């Protein structure tokens, strides 16, 4: 539930409750006042009627407003107020009356004096007053609700804007997080806190990236020294076969380390967006080029290629990056296929797919595009090829995917979202 909705709901409930209680109270009070007034009138009228009786004047019989009966037997003096319904022959219906029945002894004779007042008028009054109150209450209710939701929406607008900005925030973006507020101190505080936080995170991220790049860079030189020194050393005629074999192991390890290091450097460079400069690139063209370069290698492993390159993607991108992308995907397909397998390459305007046969799906497909996630122990693999693929896709807004269907590992790049 939205905060605004929740707030409104509380507000509505409370106002409705207040309105109901208010109307009931108002009704009771007005009713009481009217009753009081009616009873007062009845009391005064009785006094007049009794006074007339005392003076021995004939009493007007005006039913049902005033009735005087002579009581035959002894009664105590009494004044009883009550509500009653009396049939009105004119209106042909029962109508509510308030009556005061008085037993009074005048000149040794007991009389019963009944004063009545029609309640029709007062109930109409009640109705009118009640209606007005209800109308006013409803108006107030609706008006307040409207004002409330409107102002709340306006009050929360900076929050919404900050939220939108946060959602779009990415660690690798070049600009700091930009937030707008309207001077409300809570939102100002939120803005400051968010900007401080994101700046700190961005700084840490930058440092980490710089560290990766610097570290890879620094490792490069000692590695080159090791390699070139071994290359010089193996020229020495005095080296025995055994020593040569040790040297070869060192040399291979140094080469491997160097390859891993270069891949890490490449990753850092892609991440730091050092591959600027986009030009129109036809992906099919690059696939063809790379396949030509690989022909010999696929032949050597006795791999078959099945290509379905229809109208492939036409992109505006950094060409060397696309070359690396295709190369790594092809390399992956070749590395993980068995002699005699068929590698499938398909392209449509929005998507390219590389498939190679496999007995079962990879165990953790979600880790496939991570760094150093090798599915098997291929010693020549750096474990970074697919991480580079994924990084290239990330900086370009493409999507790298893995699927396992009909005994095929399928790696795809979706260019159009």
């Amino acid at each position, binding site marked *: 539930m939205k905060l605004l909705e929740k707030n409104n709901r509380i507000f509505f409930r409370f106002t409705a409750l207040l309105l109901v209680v208010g109307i009931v109270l108002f009704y009771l009070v007005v009713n009481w006042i009217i009753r009081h007034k009616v009873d007062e009138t009845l009391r005064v009228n009785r006094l007049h009627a009794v006074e007339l009786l005392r003076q021995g004047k004939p009493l007007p019989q005006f039913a049902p407003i005033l009735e005087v009966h002579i009581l035959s037997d002894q009664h105590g003096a009494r004044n009883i107020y009550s509500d009653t319904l009396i049939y009105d022959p004119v209106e042909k219906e029962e109508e509510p009356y308030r009556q005061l029945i008085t037993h009074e002894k005048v000149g040794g004779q007991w009389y019963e004096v009944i004063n009545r007042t029609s309640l029709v008028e007062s109930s109409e009054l009640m109705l009118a007053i009640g209606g007005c109150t209800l109308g006013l209450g409803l108006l107030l209710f609706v008006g307040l609700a409207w004002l409330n939701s409107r102002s709340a929406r306006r009050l929360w607008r900076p929050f919404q804007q900050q939220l939108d900005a946060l959602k779009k925030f990415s660690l690798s973006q070049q600009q700091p997080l930009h937030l707008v507020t309207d001077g409300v101190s809570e939102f100002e505080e939120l803005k400051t806190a968010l900007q401080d936080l994101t700046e700190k995170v961005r700084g840490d991220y930058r440092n980490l990236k710089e560290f990766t790049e610097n570290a890879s860079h620094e490792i*490069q*030189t000692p*590695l*080159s*020294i090791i*390699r*070139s*020194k071994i*290359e*010089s050393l*193996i*020229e020495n005629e005095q080296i025995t*076969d055994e020593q*040569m*074999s040790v*040297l*070869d192991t060192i*040399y*291979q390890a140094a*080469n491997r380390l*160097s*390859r891993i290091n*270069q891949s890490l*450097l*490449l990753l850092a*460079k892609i991440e730091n967006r*050092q*591959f600027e400069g986009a030009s129109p690139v036809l992906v099919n063209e690059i696939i063809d080029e790379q396949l030509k*370069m*690989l022909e*010999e*290698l696929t032949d*050597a*492993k006795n791999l078959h290629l099945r290509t379905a390159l229809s109208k492939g993607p036409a992109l505006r991108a950094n060409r*060397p990056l696309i070359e690396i992308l295709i*190369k790594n995907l092809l*390399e992956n397909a*070749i*590395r993980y296929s068995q002699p005699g397998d068929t590698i499938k390459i398909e392209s449509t305007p929005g998507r390219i797919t590389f498939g190679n046969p496999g007995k079962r799906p990879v165990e953790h497909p979600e880790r496939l595009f991570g760094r150093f996630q090798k599915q098997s122990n*291929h010693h*020549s*693999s*750096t474990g970074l090829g697919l991480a580079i693929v994924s990084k290239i896709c990330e900086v370009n807004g493409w999507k790298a995917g893995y699927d396992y269907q009909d005994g095929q590992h399928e790696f795809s790049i979706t260019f159009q979202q």
Partner: protein
Amino acid sequence: MKILIVEDEPAIREAIAGYLHKEGYVCEEAEDYETADEKVALYEYDLVILDITLPGGSGLEVLKSLKKAHPETGVLIVSARHSLDDKVKGLDLGADDYITKPFHLPELNARVKALLRRRVFKGKETITFNEIEVDLATNIINVNGEPVELSRKEYDLMCFFITNKNRVLSKAAIAEHLWGDYMDLADNFDLVYSHIKNLRKKIVENGGSDYIKTVYGMGYKFTSY
């Protein structure tokens, strides 16, 4: 032939100088921008091996002053891998070739020789090793005057061996020379081995001697000894 090696890392500089010295070149060294700038202004070299990232300034600046003072000097740029900018700028400024770090010394040697051939002999050269003759203009290899039919890779392999004769070539260096970025895969399939086997066979079948010696555990050596 006089070569200037501009490289800030002493160990690498010495390794390059040592390797090229054995090939019969006279090598001079410069470790930073200032020394390099001074040397290219004062002396004349046949070739300058130039690292782009130098302490004190950019190798590209050295290249500019070099091209002003001695436009005839050949330049081989050494740049970091994947820094396309340096490569393009360097070639624009008149560099002849580039090689990316880290490189194998035999690869550097091959580039240096190819560059010097193009510069000094204007590309009209044949390399001869006993009965084997490589015609660089037509990409044909003759054994005892008779052309041998070789695949492109076998031809490249032969050139690589001849330019690095009497030197041990590691399998990795050969794989990188022949397959570039795909060398990891090539390494896996023993492709180097099968290519060398085929090359040997073709040379021997055409009456040549087998000069390719296996260096136990490490690689191969092209030598008549």
